[in-house]
C-alpha cells in the first residue's frame, strides 16, 4: 500500500512540476507577443519630447530686430518660475504664419501674468525671419535655430509644434499643428504660474 501511495505522490509532484514548467514558458512566450504588439503600436513617436516630461534646456540667439531685445540670446532655464509657451515655426509654413498674430495679441496680457512666449524659427536664413518679424511687428522673443539642434533635441516633426511648459519646466501640453485664438488662450491659462 505504501508503495502505491508513494507512486501516487511522485506522480502528483511530477504533474505539478509539469504544470509550473508549461505555465512559465507560456507566460514568457505570450509576454513577448504582447510586448511586440504594444511596442509596434507605440513605435511611431519615441524620440519626441512629450507631455509630462522635463523640457530640455537650450540656448539660442535672438533675431536682431525683435521686440525689446536687450540680451542677444535666451536660455530656457532662465525662464524658470514662469510659464513658457514654446512655439516651433518657420516663415514658409502657412499655419505658423496664421497663428502668429494671435500670439502677438495675447502676449502682453499673459506676460503680465508670468507667461513668456518663445518662438523658435527653423528657417535657414536670418533675413527671412527679420522681414517676417518686421511685417507682423512681433514683440515676443524670436529665436533662430539655424543648425536645427533644438529641433532635433525636441524631435519635432510637423510645423508648427507648440509646447506649453509650466513654471517647473515640465511639459503640460504638446500641440501638433495650428492653434485657434480660443484654444491658444485656454492653453496659456493652464501654464500661468500658481503663485501669481
Amino acid at each position: 500500500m505504501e508503495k502505491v501511495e508513494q507512486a501516487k505522490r511522485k506522480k502528483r509532484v511530477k504533474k505539478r512540476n509539469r504544470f509550473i514548467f508549461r505555465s512559465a514558458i507560456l507566460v514568457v512566450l505570450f509576454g513577448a507577443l504582447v510586448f511586440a504588439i504594444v511596442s509596434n503600436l507605440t513605435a511611431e513617436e519615441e524620440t519626441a519630447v512629450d507631455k509630462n516630461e522635463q523640457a530640455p534646456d537650450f540656448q539660442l540667439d535672438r533675431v536682431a530686430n525683435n521686440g525689446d531685445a536687450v540680451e542677444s540670446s535666451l536660455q530656457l532655464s532662465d525662464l524658470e518660475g514662469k510659464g513658457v509657451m514654446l512655439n516651433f515655426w518657420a516663415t514658409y509654413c502657412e499655419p505658423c504664419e496664421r497663428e502668429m498674430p494671435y500670439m502677438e495679441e495675447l502676449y502682453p496680457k499673459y506676460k503680465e501674468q508670468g507667461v513668456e512666449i518663445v518662438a523658435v524659427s527653423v528657417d535657414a536664413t536670418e533675413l527671412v525671419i527679420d522681414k517676417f518679424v518686421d511685417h507682423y511687428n512681433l514683440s515676443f522673443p524670436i529665436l533662430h535655430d539655424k543648425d536645427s539642434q533644438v529641433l532635433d533635441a525636441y524631435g519635432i516633426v510637423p510645423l508648427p509644434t507648440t509646447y506649453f511648459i509650466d513654471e517647473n519646466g515640465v511639459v503640460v501640453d504638446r500641440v501638433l499643428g495650428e492653434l485657434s485664438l480660443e484654444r491658444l488662450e485656454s492653453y496659456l491659462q493652464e501654464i500661468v504660474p500658481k503663485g501669481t
Partner: protein
Amino acid sequence: MNIMKCSTCGHQNKEGTTICEKCGKPLDNDQQGTLLNMRYDGSAIRSKTKNRSIVDKIWNFFSSVKIGVTLITIALVASALGTIYPQEMYIPQNVDPALHYRDQYGILGQIYYQLGFHNLYNSWWYMVLIALIGISIFIVSIDRGVPLYKALKNQAIKRHPNFLKRQKLFGEYTDYNTDDKTQFINNLKKHRYKISEEDGHILAEKGRFSRWGPYVNHLGLIIFLVGTLFRFIPFMYVDDFVWVREGETAVIPSTNQQYYIKNEEFIFETYGNDDEDAIFEEALQNTSGPVPKHFETNAVIYEDVSRDVIGSDPELKEVKSGEIIVNEPLKINGLALYQDSYQLNEFQTMSFKLHEVDDEEEEAIVEFTVDLTDPESEYVFDNGYRIELNRYYPEYELNNGEPRSVSNYPRNPGFVFFVYGPDIEEREASFLAIGQNIPSGDNQYKLSLTDFGVRDVSGLKIRKDLTLPIIGLGAFIFMVGVIQGMYWQHRRIWIHQAADSMYIACHTNKNWYGLTREFEKMIDGTSFTMVRDQEKKNDS
C-alpha cells in the same frame, strides 16, 4: 492507468509509447506485417499524453505540427496578399495613401487600403501570426526534442525480434559463420559506425547528431525572432535621416546632438562619359535619361566636446573623415551613415548686375553676389548706388497671386530688390526669379542675373542596429541546424543474435537509397545477402 507495461520485459512505459523503452518490443499488439513508426523512436510525445488543465490544452494546441504547418500556410497566403499592390512605404511620400490606392488601382485598390493590406507587414495581426509561429516552434521543439533525446540516449542495444522484423530493411540469416559476422562488423566500423554490443546483440549507429538538426534550427529561429523584438528597445535601434548640403555642417539626428557631419563634397558620376563605358553603349541608348554610375559624400564627422546647453555653439572636434559610398557606410561608435539619396544642383549663390533698361550692351553699373545661405539685406556701393534685398523666397511659388516660399531650400529662389541711387527719386522695385524679371513700374534701371553657383545635397541614412549580432547569431544557428539535419542522416543497424539464426535490420531517418547502397558495401566479403525492403513487398 496511464502506464503501459511491456508484456515481455515488464518495463513500465509512459502512456503513448509505441515501442518499449527497454527491450524495444512493439507495444501495439503486434500487428504483424505493418512497419513500425520510428518517427520519435516510439517514445511518447509529451503532448500526446492526457491533458486536463487549460495550460495543458494550450500547450498541446501549439505542440501540434499540424497547427504549425497551418500557421505557416496562413502566413504564406497573407504575405502573398501584401504583394498584390505596393506597400505604403513604396508609394510616393507626398500623396495621401487613401487617394493613391483608389486612383491607381480602382475599387480593388480601395478595398486593399481599407483592409489595411497597404501596411500588411507592420499590422498587428501579421505580427501575431509570426509570433504564434514562433510560439509553436518553441513548444514543438520542447515537446518532441526532449523525449527523442531521452529515447536515443537510453536506447537498448538488444531489441526484441519483432522490433527488427518490423523495420523497413530486414534480413534473416541462418547460413553464416562467425567470420562473416566479424567481417560485417569490421565493415561497419570502416564506415564509421559506432558499435555497441550486448550478449552478441549489436547496435551500429552513426550520424545521431543529425537528429538534433531540426531542434537546432528551431533554436536559431527563436533567437532570430527574439532579436527582432529587441529592436523595440530604443537604444538598440536607430533609424534616421539627414540632408547635408555641400560645405555645410549638420547635426546628426538621434545622437543627442553629440555628433555633427560636414559634407565636404558630393561626387556624382553617370555612365557614358568614360571610354570604359563603351560596352554599355547599346544598353544606355535604350534607357531614358542618364544612368548613375557612382555617388559618394566626402564627409567629416565631428563630436561636440563642449556638451554645453543645446543650441549654444558646439565645440567641434574631428573624429573621423572619409567617403560614404553606396554599399560602403561610414561607421562611428556603432552608428552607421549610409549614402541614400541626393539632390543635384541646388542654388547656392546668385550674381546680379545693375544696368540701364535702355542700354543694349547692358553695361554693369554695379555687380553683386547674393549668398543664398546667408543673404545680406543691403548691398552698398561706392558710386552711390544701394540695393536692398526686401524679400527673399528660397523656393518661390505664387499662392493666390502672392509670392511665398514653400520651403527653406533655394531650389527656385525669388527676390524683391529695391534699388536706390543718386539719380533715382525714391526707389525702383523689381521682382526676380528664374525666368522672371518684373519691374514695379516704369523703371529706369534693371537688375539681371549674371551668374549662379550650385551645390549638391546628400541624403544620408543614420542607422544603429544593436540587434544585428543577435539576428546574425540566430541565422547562423539556423543554418547550422538545417545543414546538420539535412546533409547528414541518422543510420542504425541492429543485429539480433537468436539461437539458430541472426536478424539484421536497418533504419535511417531519411535517404534510404544511400543506406541500401551502404549496406551493399557492408556485406562485401561476407556471405550475407542483401536485406529485404519490406515496404516494396507491400507495394506489389
